[in-house]
């Protein structure tokens, strides 16, 4: 029975996240437009775009290799598996024992590598530039992320995401300075990994400033649809990750029934809506920074995360 429940939760979670991902992107765009005084397209627009792209026949460059055709699927698969591991409305999903935070970082790295390979496949200047920049940013984002994981591992004694979320929910950790610092660091990493302002501008049309979009310049049709969908999934994943770790309240515990799931679903919708509002507000308030200022931005996140771990060392040493 417990197994059946966990399978059901897993499937529901997957369906929910797959359906919600383009809506999250659409919601952020709509909110940003409203904040800037425009009417904005409906939050459903990304879904319409995806369906339109699927109907179009993809055009590949003459010298495109099999990489251009396979990489979208590889990148999408890695992101989809990663997003299946991050709990949304309930804990105790079927894949919870596999859901390790280090594995999550590895899956995101796999998706990033697939995207960068596709960007370099045709040998265009912008694709190569975007790939080199994306990989360079990750050299600063990954250490910051793992130091955040260290803070969680010290507090929860494990790097399993489900267990971390459960501990932070039940453990009554209260407000902790370390957790606050780690939250700031994690948000900075999330902004960088998703290519949002101030690190990268997802709405830019100027190739020289592109990072993520530069790798997609040659993609079209269903390939572009897959890349866009994977990007939406990745944003959803990061928001859900932040929600699962720092805002674990409301989520249905393992082995609970449909009523608790409904409550969890409402709580998740509220949390995600709030995070989208935060993201839109932040993006409207700050300007994009120069590419070579990004290491400073992520370096600050790295130091904050290190400080969080150090504070924990000191406090456990005193206790």
């Amino acid at each position, binding site marked *: 029975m417990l197994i059946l429940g966990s399978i059901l939760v897993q499937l529901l979670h997957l369906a929910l996240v797959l359906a919600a991902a383009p809506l999250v992107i659409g919601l952020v765009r709509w909110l940003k437009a409203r904040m800037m005084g425009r009417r904005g397209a409906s939050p459903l627009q990304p879904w319409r775009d995806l369906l339109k792209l*699927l109907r179009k026949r993809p055009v590949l*460059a003459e010298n495109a290799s099999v990489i251009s055709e396979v990489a979208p699927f590889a990148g999408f698969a890695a992101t989809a*598996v990663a997003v299946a591991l991050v709990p949304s409305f309930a804990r105790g999903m079927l894949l919870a024992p596999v859901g*390790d935070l280090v594995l999550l970082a590895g899956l995101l790295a796999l998706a990033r590598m697939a995207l960068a390979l596709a960007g370099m496949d045709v040998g265009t200047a912008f694709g190569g530039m975007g790939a080199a920049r994306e990989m*360079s940013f990750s050299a600063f984002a990954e*250490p910051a992320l*793992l130091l955040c994981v260290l803070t969680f591992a010290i507090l929860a004694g494990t790097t399993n995401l489900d267990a971390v979320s459960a501990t932070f929910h039940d453990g009554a950790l209260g407000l902790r300075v370390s957790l606050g610092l780690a939250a700031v660091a994690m948000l900075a990493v999330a902004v960088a990994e998703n290519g949002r302002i101030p690190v990268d501008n997802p709405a830019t049309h100027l190739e020289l400033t592109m990072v993520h979009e530069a790798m997609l*310049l*040659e993609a079209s049709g269903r390939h572009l649809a897959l890349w866009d969908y994977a990007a939406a999934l990745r944003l959803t994943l990061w928001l859900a990750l932040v929600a699962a770790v720092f805002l674990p309240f409301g989520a249905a515990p393992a082995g609970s029934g449909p009523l608790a799931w409904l409550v969890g679903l409402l709580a998740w919708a509220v949390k995600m809506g709030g995070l989208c509002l935060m993201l839109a507000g932040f993006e409207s308030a700050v300007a994009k920074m120069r590419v*070579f200022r990004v290491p400073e931005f992520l370096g600050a996140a790295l130091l904050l995360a290190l400080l969080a771990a150090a504070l924990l060392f000191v406090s456990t040493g005193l206790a």
Partner: protein
Amino acid sequence: MLTALALGLLGFPLLAALALPLGRRGGLVVHGGSAGLCLLLALAAGGSLGFGLPEGVLGLPFGPAWGGAGLAMDGLSAWFLLLLGLAGASASVFALGGPPRGLVAWPLFLFGMALALLAADSFTLLLGFEAMSVASWALVALDHREESNRAAARLYLVFAALAGLCLVAAFGLLGAVEFAAIRAVPPEGWRANAVLVLALLGAGTKAGLVPLHAWLPLAHAAAPSHASALMSGVMTKVALYVLARLLLDLAGPVQPGWWGLPLLALGAASAVFGALRANLEEDTKTLLACSTIEHVGLVTMGLGLALLFRGADLGALAALAAGAALLHALAHGLFKTLLFLVAGAVLHAAGSRRLDRLGGLIHAMPRTAVLALVGLGAAAALPPLSGFASEWLLLQALLAGWRLDEFGAQMAAAAALALVAMAAALAAAAMLRFFGMAFLGRPRSPRGAGAREAGRFELLALLLPAGLTLLIGLVPGAALALAEPAIRLLAGAAQVPAQGIAQGVGLAAGEGQAGLLPLSVALLLGLAGVGAWAVIRWRSPGATRRGPVWNCGFIDPPEHLIFGDPLSQPSAAGLAQPLRRMLGGALLAGREAVAMPSPGETRPARLEAGFADPSGRFLLTPAARLRDAVAAQVERLRDLSIRGCLSMAFGTLVGLLALLAWLEGG
């Protein structure tokens, strides 16, 4: 069993002796024979690990007067012998496809490494180690017509001599010759600390740890591809084996925990430095050699962590760190062999090692490209390949570093964690640059445009390490179950729980800390990929169309530039630009300068970019200056009178006698 192994070892010198009369026709015999013997070694090592290790020591009929020479195989030697056998077999098969060269040195190189691994006493170990150094030097110097290769071989010889000297001194300080006798009376006090320093200097030089790595990128690039594959994949591991043997086994079951800190620091520095330099190099083999520095650093960090946890009596975590080091040593040995052989196949097919002369090879060499992708994924620590499994273990060991009870050690582990993550991301960038420049895009030279797929032997040689990389990545637990005896040996006196890190085919860290089941991850990835493909087929049935590249409207290249305008493709220096600016400026003295023509001048503006390894400025240049100064002083001895010469000889004799008396008395 040991007798059979010893007889098998004798086969290598026999092959070397056969190569002399056979001359250049002996390629098939020597390389084929080496491949066969290597496979037998791998079988013997793997079989012993699976079904019980041979007991006792096989005495050899020679050796020093004050102790017996012998061969023995315990868990640690069998694990590294397994790597030697597998990588040696692949490299030998690869050599079958090329011109027969270095036929005497090749079997002797393999012999030296196997002897060093199987030695049961310091004499035999050093004998094997030096045979390995000399034979590999001969392989590095094989293309001695080129000035740069001669320089690389010379530098290599100097560093090999330094390593040998330090190791002789380290083993000398242990007091006895046989390992069993040393274990009975481990060194103490200043002697033990001197062993630590000498072992780090000696084995660290040979393994290529920062700051003694200057020789490695040069020598590994100069040797023929199959030799550089083995030097990178296995020879550095033999050096790490010696390091582990000296510090974690022979120096006694209990050392102070701080012994791990220098290993952790040197390893972390090597990891980041090597990975960053791999991003800036513009030669395929040099780039791969720099990535070797990174991975050697990661293994060293695992060993250092094992020492730290041992000192704190955390047995389970010491086993975790030791398992990470061992698994990463095996994984790296295999995937780096694969990548070097790929670089060799590319060199044969496209005629260049320079990234700026390659490109678009995925069209001409599709099979090589797919196998290269396996190696690239493992080197970039992507799931579900072997490099991810071992780096996952290392990260888990570092994530448990807060259980050490000293603030300093905790902070060191946290900093090391960040540096490992940075090194992994840098390695991914370096591997992307390697693959993207060599295999993707358009050809950058006429020779590269005419490339053909690699030959039968070369593809066969790539297949073995690629298959093993995938296999170890999918079932790391099964691989680590083989390493169980070695893990127990490295975890030392600390209590290792019966339930190890290997859980079925997956991995488990600490007591319920985390688990990894790569098989299920691979299954999920496959499911997601196939599911997406099915949905796409259903919703978007239209066939793909081919058209000219869009490239943001950039005009097509003119007819007379059949490879396209090369400047419209990213160059090796261009791809390195972000990291050269972000990290390279501080760590590698990276520089960029634009030379603008003055108004009215017709020459083009040029962008000069480059970097300089600080070890050249801070280590090699002062060392060379010191050498010249000493040589100038020694030159003055020539002018001594006969009286002066005699009194100097007498003084030396008296000094040595006094030293002997002091040592005997003390």
